């Protein structure tokens, strides 16, 4: 049976999540986004030209090492918790349909000048609206500073 009770989202969970992330030593992370509008040139598709990624800042965010048992030769994994308010603002600015579309287009995340690859994205919701996004990241093998 459907739940027909009235629920009026007031953004409380989003504000609490943002405040909590900020209070927990909130940092800033930058999504590496393809340029808008995209470049359909042949040289970009064969790795000849630099991709010209845009750096999209998201904050507050909390970055921490994921609690995972590592095996020999395996790169460590990290978690990035991002405020939904920050994500919603960027989704609106880029005129994207959803946060999933934003993360699907991202080619990585830069935290403290280091590139990380996005392994998975999940969200926590309250009253049907996301208040926190969690990105599972893996350290990129390349040691270049971003």
């Amino acid at each position, binding site marked *: 049976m459907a739940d027909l009770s009235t629920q009026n989202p007031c953004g409380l969970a989003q504000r609490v999540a943002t405040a909590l992330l900020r209070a927990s030593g909130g940092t800033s992370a930058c999504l590496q*986004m*393809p340029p*808008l509008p*995209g*470049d359909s040139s042949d040289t970009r*598709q*064969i790795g000849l030209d630099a991709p010209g990624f845009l750096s999209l800042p998201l904050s507050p965010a909390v970055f921490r090492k994921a609690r995972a048992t590592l095996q020999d030769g395996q790169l460590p994994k990290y978690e990035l918790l991002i405020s939904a308010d920050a994500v919603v603002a960027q989704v609106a600015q880029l005129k994207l349909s959803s946060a999933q579309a934003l993360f699907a287009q991202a080619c*990585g995340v830069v935290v403290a000048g280091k590139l990380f*690859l996005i392994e998975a994205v999940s969200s926590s919701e309250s009253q049907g609206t996301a208040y926190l996004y969690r990105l599972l990241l893996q350290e990129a093998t390349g040691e270049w500073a971003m």
Partner: protein
Amino acid sequence: MQNAKDTFYLTLRNRLATVNPARTMTLRSVTRPGILVEDAEAFTAQPQLDAFTLRWTGLAADLHLPAILTQMTCEIHYITAGTQPNAGLDRGRVLERMDYELLQLLYPYMAQKMNYTQSPAAAMSTQVFWSEPEFSPAVTDHDRLSRVAKVTVFAFQEPSES
């Protein structure tokens, strides 16, 4: 060798745009034919569905000829979960469609070798040619069906490439 790889990919991509214009994907903000070179794109945790992914693996060279003949193995990976209107129950049919599309993309088994480091791209002196595809058995992973086709790509190393 890189010119041969570039030529092979761009030939297949242009043929795909003709063979099945509807097979497109959006990658890096661009909607383009559904074929990509794995090592020229960003890492993704999940493979691109309903698109052909080129992965370059083996390399051999024949040095007993007037010009070096290189043989490169290209694995063409493709994976599908079927279509949304059919709730994925047509994934076998979609994979078969991709098998046939790949056969169409590969024929004829040659192309004029191009140098894409110049703008506009310049035709080179030799051709790139390749073998018929060697299809692996289809692999089922939950609701997804995938296959790999191996093609050996041959190209002469031209003096201007050294």
